[in-house]
């Protein structure tokens, strides 16, 4: 025999040609570490989706939409609550900068984010037990003073509580909520929802709301400053006066005062012919409330032209449906009255002009004066705050001045309308969140730092081919006739569960890995692994990935990037082969061991089958009892 006396050295053994561990298995990848082909390495690096970036509270919108998509509502709710304490409120009243920024608009229509938020908020309120409470740290004994229980104050208190601080909130009115209660009509935000959201916060413990405490009257600047830290969030609730003839007549009212009285449930009346002066959302809210209260008509007279109106489009449309009329480019010249009661107004054509400081300066057109009959006039031309109780240098033109961090002086911070002027609820919520973070920093002697510049994912960065076009699910509205009948009928209706899921499913998850498995599927080399979920949802097997970049090309969300291999500096992170073909000496022997094991297993199975009795397939060994 020619093979007699031959010996194959162990490192060269390869018993059956072509039988090796497959590269899909770890053993195989160790034997074929083709990672050394690579110039570029795919890296999962999440960017900021435009919605998250646009939201002043920094809600992780992509994340909770993804949870809702997978019907994980509790996770979605908890995700919102990390940034925004009152999703049921913002889910109803937010002017949704997120939807405005949504990349989906470039694809077909933006996602109905606000409705999903409302769905999750209401889901959270309906839970028998607050999932947040158990996650809070114990109180650390430090109490922060907050002025105002509007969205900014409540958000600050909530986020302070998340960091272990307790807070005391001084509220001027007899009920908490600030503008949420006093400025937003119940048909936008039902009172029980607001109450439930506030109760949810006070039940967390450590948040003490003291109503009827007006700063400057019931509590002094000195007392406020005596707290370790103070957050001023008293909003702007004093309507600007309009200096025209006859303005003191009965029936002329600030729109804010009108909404506040209505919001607090105090007796208030509106006539059947209401003239609203102003071109913003307050004018719209006031006109629509007046229509509900008086059952008559309302006209919104604004300096702004129809195109310049500052009313959000869907409110404008709803107002029209409810019978609110518009008189754009119109200025109030004089109020007409009989026996001190308004009977009409003189108006004229006008244009919106601006003075050097950006303030409103109407440009009237002489000779266009005309009379308009009305029994109620609501003035909605902006608001300020009463701040004379503060040291003079801390305020200017009805707002409190602060540095870029919202820091007034010392440990005193400010946020919301009293810093910004009239702005959105969600701005106030964001200010409260940031103030809580910064108060924590100053109290723990950390430096205040500007927000890092986010890298926002543009539509162009997505692989849009992966997203089929699908229309937006519009939230249904109560019919206009029914809306007019009551202050309490909500205008916008909630998404059903199915609608919330379907709408969330439209999210393109811009720049953020949502575990779509596309990389896992397209990888020609089984190098994308989803067994270890870190850095997003997947890991790249760098020992085996050849750097073909198909995954990067085909990533729908754009969260996968290519990074030059030589930029990875860790010397241990190297896929080095001993030779061009073998990763190390003795690799053949490993293949040999693998093959021998397969053969031995097969022989064992074969032997086992032969020792089994023929026919029934039962084990050969019988119980002893049967043997006898």
């Amino acid at each position, binding site marked *: 025999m020619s093979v007699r006396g031959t010996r194959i050295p162990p490192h060269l053994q390869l018993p059956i040609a072509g039988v090796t561990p497959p590269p899909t298995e770890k053993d195989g990848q160790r034997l074929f570490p083709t990672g*050394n082909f690579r110039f570029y390495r795919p890296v999962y690096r999440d960017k900021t989706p435009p919605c998250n970036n646009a939201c002043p509270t920094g809600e992780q919108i992509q994340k909770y939409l993804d949870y809702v998509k997978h019907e994980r509502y509790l996770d979605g709710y908890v995700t919102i609550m990390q940034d925004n304490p009152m999703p049921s409120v913002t889910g109803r009243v937010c002017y949704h900068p997120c939807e405005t920024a949504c990349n989906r608009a470039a694809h077909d229509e933006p996602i109905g984010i606000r409705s999903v938020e409302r769905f999750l908020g209401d889901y959270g309120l309906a839970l028998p037990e607050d999932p947040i409470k158990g996650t809070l740290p114990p109180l650390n004994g430090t109490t922060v003073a907050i002025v105002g229980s509007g969205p900014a104050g409540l958000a600050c208190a909530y986020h302070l509580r998340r960091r272990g601080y307790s807070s005391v909130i001084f509220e001027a009115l007899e009920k908490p909520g600030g503008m949420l209660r006093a400025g937003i009509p119940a048909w936008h935000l039902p009172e029980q929802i607001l109450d439930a959201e506030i109760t949810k916060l006070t039940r967390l413990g450590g948040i003490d709301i003291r109503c009827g405490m007006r700063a400057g009257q019931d509590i002094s600047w000195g007392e406020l400053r005596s707290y370790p830290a103070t957050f001023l969030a008293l909003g702007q609730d004093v309507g600007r006066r309009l200096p025209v003839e006859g303005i003191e007549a009965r029936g002329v009212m600030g729109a804010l005062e009108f909404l506040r009285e209505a919001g607090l449930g105090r007796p208030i009346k509106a006539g059947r012919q209401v003239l609203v002066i102003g071109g913003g959302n307050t004018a719209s809210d006031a006109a629509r409330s007046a229509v509900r209260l008086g059952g008559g008509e309302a006209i919104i007279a604004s300096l702004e032209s129809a195109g310049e109106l500052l009313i959000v489009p869907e409110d404008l449309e709803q107002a029209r449906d409810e019978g609110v009329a518009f008189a754009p480019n119109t200025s109030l010249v004089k109020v007409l009255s009989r026996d001190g009661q308004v009977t009409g107004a003189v108006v004229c054509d006008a244009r919106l002009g601006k003075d050097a400081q950006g303030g409103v300066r109407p440009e009237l057109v002489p000779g266009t004066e005309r009379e308009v009959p009305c029994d109620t006039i609501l003035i909605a031309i902006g608001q300020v705050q009463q701040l004379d109780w503060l040291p003079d240098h801390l305020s200017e033109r009805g707002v409190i001045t602060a540095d870029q961090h919202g820091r007034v002086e010392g440990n005193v911070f400010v946020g919301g309308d009293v810093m910004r002027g009239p702005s959105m609820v969600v701005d106030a919520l964001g200010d409260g969140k940031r103030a809580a973070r910064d108060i924590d920093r100053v109290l723990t002697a950390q430096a205040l730092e500007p927000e890092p510049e986010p890298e926002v994912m543009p539509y162009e960065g997505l692989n849009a081919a992966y997203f089929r076009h699908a229309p937006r699910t519009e939230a249904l509205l109560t019919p206009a006739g029914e809306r007019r009948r009551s202050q309490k009928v909500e205008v916008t209706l909630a998404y059903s569960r199915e609608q919330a899921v379907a709408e969330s499913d439209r999210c393109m998850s811009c720049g953020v890995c949502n575990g779509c498995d596309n990389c896992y599927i397209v990888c020609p080399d089984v190098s994308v692994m989803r067994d270890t979920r870190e850095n997003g949802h997947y890991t790249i097997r760098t020992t085996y990935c050849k750097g073909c970049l198909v995954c990067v090309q085909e990533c729908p969300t754009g969260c996968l990037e290519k990074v030059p291999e030589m930029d990875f500096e860790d*010397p241990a992170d190297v896929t080095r082969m001993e030779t*061009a073909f073998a990763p190390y000496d003795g690799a053949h022997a490993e293949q040999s061991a693998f093959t021998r094991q397969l053969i031995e297993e097969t022989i064992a199975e074969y032997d086992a089958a032969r020792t089994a009795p023929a026919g029934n397939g039962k084990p050969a060994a019988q119980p002893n009892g049967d043997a006898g």
Partner: protein
Amino acid sequence: MYHELTVWSRGIIMDKEARDVSSCIAAAARALGYYADNVSDYVDDPDRTNCLVRRYARFGDSPIVDRFVYENPHPDWVVLVEETIIKAVNFLRGTPERGGVVVVNSVRDPDYLLKFLPDEMKAKMAKFVVVDAVGLAEQRDRSPWMFVRNLSELALDRMSTEGAEERLAIGMGIAAPLIGALTAATGELPIDAVADQVADRDAMLRGAAKYAVVDFTAAAGEPARANGEQAEEPGPDGEAASVPATPAAHSTSAG
């Protein structure tokens, strides 16, 4: 005197560069009267894009007995056509201790590249030479993947990769500065004699004049470092220290 040159490169896209380096060195050695072989890659599947491929030259003043060995058993000249090869393979397998001159095409700092090498590989190096061959080459195209060649040239070159005759001039593109740096750093072959074999003579001379070198054969402690300025005037005198010994260990007799 006997040297083995192994040029490491990437399949298809940079095969021509590697071939050119080994071809020119072997041709120069042959022209100088040495016994020389220029050997293609046969064991590395050179038709696979990006995979590691090698080209070899060996030359000396006595006949080469084992002409048919696939891989240079004891390469003392090593060229890496592309920098990620630093991480990819033990390119100093078989190289005698302190005997290897390694030339890398990279814009990076030599110390950054050395960081990826284990001590046992560093122990085999006499010199570590970094040359920005892409920067020094005649730029004809912007593609970082193919360096200075375009797709149609690459398609034609595919035939030569498989072993057909060379279609394109030998010693163009980044091969030229690499050959220059290698010739200057090793100092074994006269620069002019090698330049005669290189199509892009100017780029070859630019490579010979501008490279960074870490000299591990320096007398004490830390390896000596130099950059382009010191290497400005390459020549046998200045390079004496880098000439590796030519011990009998280089003999390929597999006895």
